């Protein structure tokens, strides 16, 4: 009896922590997010609007980014297996959108939450960090898929017109908050597409959900591999000029 009670208490104490961190819990649906009634992609929250109005400073951003380096790494290039995404060269507008939407609970990210929540990072620091990250070069190699599937991946990317939003070189669109997807870690790309397809990434774009709706898992792997093998879009665009 006593033991059972104790075990129960222990379980209740342990569960929230471990469940919150396990990847299954990342699939918790945000009550406010995609699929809920009245969800409109791209609604700009008060905080997002506030951060976008602030004048950023990359030098201050480098200092504030210390609190993020423990996971995203000193060079902001994340980890090869994609647990922690690359943030180098991501559009400042996208970084601001993602961080403020994690804070508002629209995108669920229990691993990062306490380190990016409002008691940990100020709106000014978000603006500064976003500016700092957008200027960073990517020098370290990123994680690729186990097999080179880029021919098939490229065909899927073109046929489904992903480039309308993410660009021909995976460069995204800063003004429209569409993320850079080129040269990102394979593991992260695949995980996000799975979430978006299933409707479990709270801030998904409904048109994107539709665009990958018919993808098989093998298709997702092929596109993730293709995108992971694209060079940094800035190098491609610079050459084109």
């Amino acid at each position, binding site marked *: 009896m006593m033991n059972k009670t104790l075990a129960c208490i222990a379980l209740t104490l342990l569960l929230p*922590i471990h469940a919150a*961190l396990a990847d299954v819990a990342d699939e918790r649906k945000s009550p406010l997010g995609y699929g809920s009634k009245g969800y409109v992609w791209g609604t700009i929250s008060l905080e997002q609007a506030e951060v976008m109005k602030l004048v950023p400073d990359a030098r201050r951003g480098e200092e504030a980014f210390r609190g993020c*380096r*423990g*996971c995203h*790494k*000193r060079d902001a290039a994340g980890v090869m297996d994609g647990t922690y995404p690359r943030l180098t060269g991501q559009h400042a507008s996208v970084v601001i959108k993602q961080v403020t939407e994690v804070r508002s609970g629209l995108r669920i990210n229990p691993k990062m939450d306490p*380190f990016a929540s409002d*008691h*940990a990072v100020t709106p000014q620091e978000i603006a500064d960090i976003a500016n700092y990250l957008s200027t960073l070069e990517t020098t370290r190699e990123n994680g690729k898929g186990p097999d080179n599937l880029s021919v098939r991946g490229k065909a899927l990317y073109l046929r489904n017109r992903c480039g309308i939003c993410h660009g021909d070189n995976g460069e995204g669109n800063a003004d429209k908050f569409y993320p850079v997807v080129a040269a990102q870690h394979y593991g992260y790309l695949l995980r996000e597409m799975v979430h978006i397809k299933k409707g479990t990434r709270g801030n998904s774009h409904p048109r994107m959900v539709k665009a990958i709706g018919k993808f098989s898992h093998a298709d997702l792997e092929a596109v993730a591999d293709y995108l992971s093998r694209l060079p940094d879009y800035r190098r491609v665009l610079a050459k084109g000029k």
Partner: protein
Amino acid sequence: MSRMHPSTRWLRRHAAVTVLGLTLLALPPLVHAQDIPPLSERLQLCASCHAMDGNSVIPENPKISGMDAGYLERQMADFKSGVRKSPVMSGIIPLVDGKEFAALAGHFSAQKPGKGVAADPRLVAEGKAIFDEGIVGSAVPACSGCHNEDGSGTEKYPRVAGQHTAYVVQQMLNFKSGERANDSRALMRAVAKRMNEKEIRAVAEYVATLSGSE
């Protein structure tokens, strides 16, 4: 991988307090609260536990040499207000006037930190991995991200290099339980909550071996 046996801890604390008692006896009678003694005199009190150069040799008493002055001053203020509790420092700090904190912090901050040693060298390699890379499975961020690769710290993140293993273990456990809750932006509580005692002990052993000379 348990914490120190309670009786050992008690003995060590008791030893520290005895040293303090002797020091107090040797000092001139306690001055009135308003009269602030000269720094050199006040330092005698601290030296009994932290050593004059801040490189304490008692594992439960932290080394405070070379740490950021702002950090040290804030800790003293937090002991005074009760925001940070300690069975030992909470008894000492009422003897000290708040106006003395800056000078005391300045003194210890200017001291040269000494090197530390691991109490159990077998854990150092595992500790290094945690310090440098974090623990990906349980989303523990790398300590180096905030405290620097060599543990030298910054204004915002305190120096930890060369610190006593026992002190680091105790602080991590205090952050984990929430007993110590004066960490700025609740960051260390978030880190420590994700770690188990074995991991805490290992990383503390590695911290002790860092020289922090960056």
